[in-house]
């Protein structure tokens, strides 16, 4: 892999929140790497730190009570965390944009949908006037499958799927290099979800955009992503290509996640849930964060932070059993 192929590299990112006098360890030493034109799926459950990672990249964490305590976020080699706020403003919406989870609250209810698209275009266009931005906004509406004359409508006149398409139009209006999609279809019905995923994929090809797709839906990952990172309690526990993760899931948490989904092809009386609950982020267990729920956990799992290991098929997995099984073979 050549260096120029990499668009975004996150190194050792940690994010903490202060809540009720306690420190919430939301993201704990995350490394991710996103290549040009590719899609990386970030998979995990509620509170795993997925959204905090996206917000750190855009530097839109809450001003009060949230802090990036370590790490670098390198976009084409430049550390976004060290940019001045004015420089960051030029990047937001132009080089990096975000699709938020909830289309119902992501739009301004008292502003025409078209103006909300034109706003981002006007802000970032180097030449041209307001009329050019309006024309381009109408084009964007057409691209996402909404007639241009609906530019003058308000969000409440749109269905959920249409609102999410407006959010996508805003995100893609300046042809960003990087798209952060935070559960873009979770609030939508499956037939509408299929339409929106198709749309994102088509546009991504057209503009050669890289995408970080945050989701908890393994089906969506299977359909859309090239690479997959599985996150648990703020730690990436497994990371590889889609084929590696789906064909040879190696971390007990990933295996548990796959096992808990009701099968579409087999008939089973009982599902296989993961016992217990995710850990309290203000009081994470020492060692592996999954150890309290893990059926294979031993003393060694509860001591120190687990170092990444390489599985036989060459992907990253933070589990001591990988090294142990290798030793067992020799």
């Amino acid at each position: 892999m050549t260096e120029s192929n990499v668009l975004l590299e996150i190194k050792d990112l940690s994010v903490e929140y202060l809540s009720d006098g306690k420190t919430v360890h939301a993201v704990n030493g995350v490394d991710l790497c996103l290549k040009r034109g590719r899609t990386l799926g970030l998979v995990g459950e509620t509170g795993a730190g997925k959204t905090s990672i996206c917000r750190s990249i855009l530097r839109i964490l809450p001003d009060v009570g949230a802090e990036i305590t370590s790490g670098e976020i390198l976009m084409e080699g430049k550390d976004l965390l060290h940019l001045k706020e004015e420089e960051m403003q030029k990047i937001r919406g132009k080089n990096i944009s975000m699709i938020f989870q909830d289309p119902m609250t992501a739009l301004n209810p008292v502003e025409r949908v078209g103006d909300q698209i034109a706003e981002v275009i006007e802000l970032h266009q180097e030449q041209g006037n307001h009329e050019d931005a309006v024309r381009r906004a109408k084009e964007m509406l057409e691209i996402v499958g909404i007639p241009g004359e609906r530019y003058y409508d308000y969000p409440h006149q749109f269905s959920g799927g249409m609102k999410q398409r407006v959010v996508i139009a805003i995100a893609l209006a300046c042809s960003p290099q990087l798209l952060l999609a935070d559960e873009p279809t979770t609030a939508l019905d499956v037939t509408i979800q299929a339409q929106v995923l198709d749309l994102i994929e088509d546009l991504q090809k057209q503009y050669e955009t890289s995408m970080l797709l945050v989701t908890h839906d393994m089906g969506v990952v299977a359909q859309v992503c090239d690479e997959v990172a599985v996150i648990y309690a703020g730690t990436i526990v497994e990371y590889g290509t889609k084929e590696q993760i789906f064909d040879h899931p190696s971390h007990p948490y990933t295996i548990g996640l796959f096992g808990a989904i009701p099968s579409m092809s087999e008939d089973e009386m009982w599902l296989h849930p993961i016992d217990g609950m995710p850990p309290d982020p203000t009081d994470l267990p020492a060692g592996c964060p999954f150890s309290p729920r893990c059926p294979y956990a031993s003393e060694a799992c509860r001591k120190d932070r687990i170092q990444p290991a390489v599985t036989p098929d060459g992907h990253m997995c933070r589990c001591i059993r990988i090294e142990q099984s290798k030793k067992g073979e020799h």
Partner: protein
Amino acid sequence: MTQPLIEVRHLKKYFPVNGGTLHAVDDVSFTIEKGKTLGVVGESGCGKSTLGRTLIHLQESTDGQILLDGKDVTKVRKKELKAVREKMQIIFQDPYSSIDPRFSIDETIKEPLIVSGRYSRKEMVQRAEELMELVGIDERLRRAYPHELDGGRRQRVGIARALALEPDFIVCDEPVSALDVSIQAQVLNLLKKLQIERGLTYMFITHDMSVVRHISDDICVMYLGQMVEKCASKELFRNPLHPYTRALLSAIPSTDIHHRQERIRLKGEITSPVDPEPGCRFAARCPFAQEKCHAPQHQINASDGHFVTCCRVHEINA
């Protein structure tokens, strides 16, 4: 055939809205046998929750009949209604808003017992303990408040409350859709275990096709207030006949990465359920729609127990 526990005949629920009448549930009929689960699937706004709520009298039906154990309970009032409600309970979708934040866990579970007026104070304490154990909530959480609990545990509280008066029938309205998959599996297993132990009958409302396939004996597919297809769960996934069901099934993202699924791409937006035209409501998005689809549609028995509401079902599945 044994007598079904629940029988619904031509049930309708209309709401007056600005500029017309919203047909939320429009002429729906089905039966559920004792100890079985009927899954009701469809997308948001298709009327599946309204169907569940109307069935257990949280809302009055506009027209049609509801039979519980052979007895017509469509128009019951006051005292009788209270007795009927003890037999029919509901588990709500949102474990955050369906539990009173100012009630402790045991107060929430005891409330139906208090309302029934049949339990002494001592019996209530004992019963609440039994129920908590039954649904797997730790005894130490008895005095806890909802904000101290995560979604999975709250949903267990909702289940305990629904079970308090030993109902025969429970409407489960998206009981796991607010939960993460690992927790979702715990709750689904609990519902199944309770059904086996107590012979419960469920109507399970969901938009998640893998969940409905797992839990249901029969499935009914709804689209804009109408039932478009109903048959045994296995039959629906093996042999979907209605164009909407086929599109719905093809749209589920599969976790099989080696076979790219062929999606049926639907075009167009959902038609309005306010004063809808007669005829098939899916016609506006249906790839097979013809002139005759705009005439009123009837339920067709396509094969043994497999009902489809589509006039072209034989042509398009030939």
